[in-house]
């Protein structure tokens, strides 16, 4: 299928698609690395404090020093991957709200992009290292730029409730882009939904075109087909009204549930909108899929399919798709907003409190460190160590890359001369 090949070239498929297991493994790995760093950083901070205090207290006590260190180490309790995920989800919801504070409100597409940026960023970074609050605004601002919704930085910063400076918004930008692996393209299901609804309306008005693999269908047959499907969940006056209603409901699902769950990582946008559409109006969605992939899927138990279906090359695709769409709609349906559930809110408060204690102290003030993100800048003493470490790592990676491919211009001239 050509459309599928088009999607396979996207960075969303190439870099940001995961299986459920690989996704959780990645999150776990990120969490472990980040926890280790947080512990080390906190200890460093504490030891510098302690080395500063003895001069004030007078006598340094080496014995008691060790004793006090042991219990404090135990105190550092880091977030679990699940807690991190809840936290990120909360800030994703916040991003939606933040978009509403602007006048006019930011387009859905921009907000959705920002949310996906946040989600992608926190796959490889931990909220313990970078607080989502600081990243969130930046992600939204970056999304306005990548989605062609121009806003000046000042205008943007003014729209954020509370006193947020332009510097606060922009400072983590490079960091965020790095976390996104510089792939800004997010494929949303919204426009696909419009296309699908457009086609359904055409069918409902008797102007439907058959799919390229099912050329035997005529517009009249399609019209009869759509008229004879089972009634939807809500009583509607006309067919186009029904489609419009399903359209609205799907859009709502896509705006919220699709954004807040891992749907973007696990499914393709086309599958996401169809799953949401299934939730909104199952008979309609099933009919639409049938017009595309032929024949209703006979609801047989464990694979004892109709032989005529087996002959259809689309049958396999159809049955596979059925499973994927069911999984995806289950994922979307299971979603409830955090703020609507008091239990979840209580849990969130606990996590926030916990995060307060295990926040990486070296990463708190991003605005000051923005310059140091550039490799050539010589920064303050706090960052210089990590900076040099980073540079060393980068250099090593470069060398490794160079070692693999032979240099097209040959080895260095000086080396050659010394050999001779």
């Amino acid at each position, binding site marked *: 299928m050509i*459309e599928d090949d088009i999607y396979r070239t996207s960075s969303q498929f190439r870099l940001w698609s995961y299986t459920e297991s690989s996704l959780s493994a990645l999150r776990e790995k990120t969490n472990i690395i980040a926890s280790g760093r947080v512990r080390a950083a906190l200890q460093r901070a504490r030891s510098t404090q302690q080395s500063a205090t003895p001069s004030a207290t007078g006598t340094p006590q080496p014995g008691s020093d060790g004793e006090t260190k042991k219990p404090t180490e135990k105190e550092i309790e880091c977030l679990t991957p699940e807690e991190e995920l809840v936290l990120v989800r909360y800030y994703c919801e916040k991003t939606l709200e933040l978009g509403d504070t602007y006048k006019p409100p930011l387009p859905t597409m921009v907000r959705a992009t920002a949310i996906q940026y946040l989600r992608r960023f926190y796959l490889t970074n931990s909220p313990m290292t970078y607080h989502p609050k600081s990243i969130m605004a930046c992600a939204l601002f970056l999304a306005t730029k990548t989605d062609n919704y121009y806003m000046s930085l000042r205008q943007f910063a003014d729209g954020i409730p509370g006193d947020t400076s332009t510097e606060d918004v922009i400072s983590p930008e490079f960091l965020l882009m790095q976390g996104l692996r510089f792939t800004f393209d997010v494929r949303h299901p919204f426009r696909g939904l419009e296309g699908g609804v457009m086609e359904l309306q055409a069918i409902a008005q008797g102007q439907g075109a058959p799919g390229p693999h099912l050329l035997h269908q005529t517009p009249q047959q399609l019209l009869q087909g759509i008229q004879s499907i089972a009634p939807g969940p809500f009583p509607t006056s006309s067919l186009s009204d029904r489609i419009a209603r399903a359209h609205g409901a799907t859009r709502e699902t896509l705006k919220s549930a699709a954004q807040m769950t891992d749907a973007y990582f696990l499914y393709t946008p086309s599958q996401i909108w169809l799953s949401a559409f299934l939730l909104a109006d199952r008979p309609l969605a099933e009919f639409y899929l049938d017009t595309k992939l032929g024949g209703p899927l006979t609801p047989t138990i464990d694979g004892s399919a109709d032989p005529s279906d087996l002959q259809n090359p689309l049958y396999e695709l159809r049955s596979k798709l059925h499973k994927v769409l069911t999984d995806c709609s289950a994922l979307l349906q299971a979603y409830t907003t955090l703020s609507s559930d008091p239990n979840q809110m209580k849990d969130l408060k606990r996590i926030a409190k916990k995060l307060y204690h295990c926040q990486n102290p070296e990463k708190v003030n991003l605005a000051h460190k923005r310059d140091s993100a550039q490799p050539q800048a010589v920064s303050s003493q706090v960052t210089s160590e990590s900076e040099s470490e980073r540079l060393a790592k980068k250099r090593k990676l470069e060398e490794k890359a160079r070692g693999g491919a032979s240099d097209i211009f040959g080895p260095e001239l000086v080396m050659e001369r010394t050999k001779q």
Partner: protein
Amino acid sequence: MASKNGIDRRDEDEVCPVCKSSRYLNPNMRFLINPECYHKMCESCVDRIFSSGPSSCPVAGCRKTLRKARFRAQTFEDIGVEREVDIRRRVMHILNRREEEFDSKRAYDDFLEQREEMIANLVHRTDVAKTEAQLQKYASVNIQSIRANQAIEEQEASSFAARMTQEQEEARLRRQAAREQLENERREMQAGREDMISRLAAGSSADAAAIAREGHKVLLKKSSARRSEEDRIRQKQAALRGSETKRGGSSLTTADTAGPSDGGLIKGLRRIKTPEPEKPYDPFMGYVPEKRDYYALQPSYPSTYLDRVKNDTRTAAGGYDLQEYYSRTLVEAFAGLGCFIGEEVAQREAATSGLGLKPAATTSAAMAAGDES
């Protein structure tokens, strides 16, 4: 046929079998033969008999019709050899398959044997009609490959000749250079000796030994420098020669030509694959821009929301094309519908880890986590 004393063909008492005039009377007499019957006759007889068109051979008992144009001087003294060489040339001209055209060395050897057999048949006049028929048939069927091989042979011959003359020229230059060098050397030696003698004459007797030693040293140095120079030149020439022969060789290997299989005469010929005619250039590699698998794009779709845009001249004036919107939304509606991430990504990860690489995602995760902390 063969003269008695073998070597001297300008036999004094050689007599033309047609006009009976002898060389004794006419020292400039030349004898000609015609490959039809190989009967020898003198030039004046040929002029006399065949000037007015083809005529039959004047030798008694021979009824071959001969043409003047075909008469030529005899190459070999033995007419039998002459005839065999002619036949051989003709057959080899037709059966000119090359070794690289055969599957194996064995097949090529068989072919050579077959060819020899045919030549022998023709020479000894056994199965002449059958062999001739075979040859004719083969020639008519394989006219193209015969031509191609002939062209290759000609090219080989000419390039060989060119190489020979080039080598001769090089050798000449080398000899000349060597001669000049020898001359220079001699002159230098002479000059050095004269110089030394004049200095010896001018200087005191105490310096004599030193001057003599010095002069000797200078000579030695010069000769060693020259030797190394020679070496260098020789190396350069060798390298040049090597590259040239390589070039010559490569130009000759373009022997493979397309041709039909032989007319069943020669076995073991390599199947020559005719290269498929080049298809028209397809920049999208099979991708048809307008082809879609999930939907057929229609010129317009009913939509209350879009109808406003459609009828608004302002959008059209701005260059906005609703058709673009249709195609984009529909592509996005189905792009990736058949991509099953669960399967495909798992496969991808298995492939990358199978290669001993870390999956890109986890590598970069480690990088990102490591870099930023």
